[in-house]
Structure formats: C-alpha cells, structure tokens
C-alpha cells in the first residue's frame, strides 16, 4: 500500500513535470534579454527550494532523534539529506550551464554559487562518513550530530563570503528580483510542484529502503545470537 502510494506520487510528479516541460518549451515566449536559456529557471530554482525544505526537515528529525532515540527519525534524516544533496547537484549543474551561456564561464566565486557549493560539500561529508560507522545506534547518533553541525554552518558560510575583500565581482542575477513577468508564474509553480512530488517520492522510497535494511540487520543479528 505504502509502496503504491510512493510510486503514485512519483508518477504524478513525472506527469506534472512532463506537462510543464511542454508548456515551458512550446507555450512560453523567449525571455527578452536571455533568450531561450532562461527556461532553466523552472528547474534550477525549484531544485534549490525543495532541497532546502528537505535539509530543514533533516535538521528537525536529527534533533528529534537525539531527544527520543527513535530510529525512524534517523531514517527520515538520511533519506531527506540524500535526496536534497542530489537536488543541490541538479541546481549546481543547471546553474553552471546557464552561467556558461550567460556569463561565458562555467563557474565563478559568486556569493550564491559559493554557498551552494559549500552546502553540497558539507552534506556530501555526511553521506561519506555515515556508512563508515558500523554500530547502528552510534551511526544514527553521529549522523544526527553531523547533520546539525552542517545546518549551522550554512548561514556562517553565507556570512563569510560577504566579507569586504572576498571576490564577488559577478552579479547574482539568478531569479529576477520579483520582476518576473506574470506569464511565467504558473510554470514556475508547476515546476515547484513537480520537483516537490518527485523529491517526496524519492525520500519515501529511500525511507522504505532504510527501514527494510534495519529490519534485515536486526533479523541477521538475532540469527547470529541464536
């Protein structure tokens, strides 16, 4: 039942995504200044917003795990962080393509780019260290602590790269400052919905895998103990 709901959610997300891609590529006029490349915004920005939502959920569940020691919170945390880190990668790659087209370079040490990259690196370290811890309770506790530390670091990086002498020559033109034409609002909302649905489906899928893995592990331990 739960599995079916997960797949349904994913399929729904895929449908919204496909119909939205159709609207974006066929229905919308090119942007006055950027031409056709601006369409990346309908994937690029939602990917980051959905990722941030999942990172925030992961923070809450990490704190809850430390407080209540219930393994379901650990499973939610790792599922959220894994999917969110992937979404950040989507955001970085699409942004890089846009930058090559608009700025002429794939990468620059702009404020937003740097914080985004740091977010990616921080949560990658979570994903790298986690499998190295063998004992389940220890793995969950250490993971929760790393997740909390990582979340606290993001605003600090934001602050750090705003120092006066740090290279910030490039403008941060990503997302028109509320000056987006009304015709783009609907596809943008649909882009959000699509990635939210697909992201949630992936999180649920990973959650399912995590809980099954935990069950298998505990059965195996019982078997060895007997």
């Amino acid at each position: 039942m739960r599995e079916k709901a997960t797949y349904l959610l994913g399929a729904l997300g895929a449908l919204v995504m496909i119909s939205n891609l159709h609207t974006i590529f066929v229905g919308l006029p090119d942007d006055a200044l950027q031409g056709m490349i601006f369409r990346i915004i309908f994937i690029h920005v939602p990917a980051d917003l959905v990722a941030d939502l999942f990172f925030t959920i992961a923070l809450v569940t990490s704190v809850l795990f430390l407080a209540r020691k219930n393994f379901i919170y650990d499973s939610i945390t790792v599922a959220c962080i894994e999917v969110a880190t992937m979404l950040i990668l989507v955001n970085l790659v699409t942004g890089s393509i846009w930058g090559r087209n608009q700025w002429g370079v794939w990468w620059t040490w702009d404020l937003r780019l740097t914080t985004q990259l740091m977010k990616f690196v921080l949560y990658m370290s979570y994903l790298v260290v986690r499998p190295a811890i063998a004992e389940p309770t220890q793995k969950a506790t250490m993971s929760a602590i790393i997740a909390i530390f990582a979340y606290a670091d993001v605003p600090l990086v934001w602050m750090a790269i705003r120092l006066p002498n740090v290279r910030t020559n490039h403008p941060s033109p990503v997302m028109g400052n509320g000056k987006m034409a009304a015709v783009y609002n609907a596809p943008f909302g649909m882009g959000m919905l699509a990635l939210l649905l697909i992201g949630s489906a992936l999180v649920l899928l990973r959650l399912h895998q995590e809980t099954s893995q935990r069950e298998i592990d505990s059965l195996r331990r019982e078997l060895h103990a007997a």
Partner: protein
Amino acid sequence: MTHGFRTAYAIARKDLRTELRTKESLNAAASFAVVILVLFSFAFPLERDEFYAISGGLLWLVYSFAGALIVNRGFARELPNDCLDVLIASRAPGWAIFLGKAVAAFLLLLIVEFICLPVFGLFYNIRWTDSFGSLVLVIVLATWGITVVGTAFSAVTVNVRVRELMLPVLLYPMIIPLLIGAMEATTVLLSGEAMAGDNLYSLQLLVVFDVIYTALALYLIDYVLVV
C-alpha cells in the same frame, strides 16, 4: 560546575603532559607544517609584494593541516587500555572531558603555529611583528574554532574504522567560513592595514563561529560520548 572545570583542567593538563613527553603529534604537526611552507614557495613563485596578498591564505592552510593532525589524537589517545570507556564511566561530566581535550589541543596547535610564524616570515620575507597584537587575537580566535570543531569530530570519529580518513572529510568543509575569516583578517594585518571599519567584519565572523560551535559542541558532546 566548579567540579566540571576542575576536571577539565585536570584532563587538559594530563593531555598536555602526555603530549609534551612523547611529542607524537607535536613533532608530526610541526614538521609537516614546515614542509608545506617550503612547498608553497615552489607552488607560488611570486614577487615579494604579491606574496602579501596571499599570505593569510598560505598561513591558514598550513595551520589547518597541522590542526587536523593535532585534533586527530584528541580522543584517539584514550583508546588503548579502554581509557575512553573509563573516562566516560567516571564522574566527570561529558562537557568537562570535551573542554579539557579541546583546551589541550588548542594549546598544542598554538605552539605549532608560533613555531611556523617566524619560519613563514623568514621564508617569504614577510613582516609579521608590526601588528603582532592583533595577529595574536586572530590566531587565538581561529585556532579555538578549529580545535573546538576538530575535537568534537575527533569524538564523533573515534570509533570509526578509518578514523584518520574521516576526520578531515568532516572537519574541512565545516571550518570553511572560519578559515575564510581568518585568511581575510591575516592578509589585512600582514599587509599593514588597520583592523578597523570593514576589516572588522572578519573578526566578528570568527567570534560568531566560535560562540556557535562551542555552544553546540558542549551541548551535544554528551550524545556523542554516551552512545
């Protein structure tokens, strides 16, 4: 509370005494730092004036490499003879154990840093004595940040199989904002600019980082130690 601080003091003294007798991480960190300093001169063949612009960056890369070596030993030192289990089982509160270890690592890293600083000035012909007071403040603030995060993660990774590999993977991304602030402030000071106006921003960043991570680490260390 006083009991906790006394315990922290005792643990810091014990760690320092062991380290100063064996010098196992001190020697390694200091010699490694000097080797890196030598390598930098080949990596960046610049004129003297150009060196000032990257001086802070070079110095803090060396310091953070040395820092990882030092904090790595923090909790790992207690593994033989199950000393860590005894420490945790003792009456000492978790935060006091952590504080003691962090202070010891902090002082050890400071020793390495003040060995490296004259070597750095000598190799690259950089005057560091002019703004020594402010430089010490920056070094103290940033070193405390490195050791507090480092010691916390040394507790997190102490029971991990590949501890020496995992600590840097965790530590470096986490201290990026701190290192940016420290590099910025050090470059400003070594270039002879005054620590005022916009330049104060990097100092504020160091203070904010230290406060947040010291609080987080002291609060969360019980969960790390008692699993």
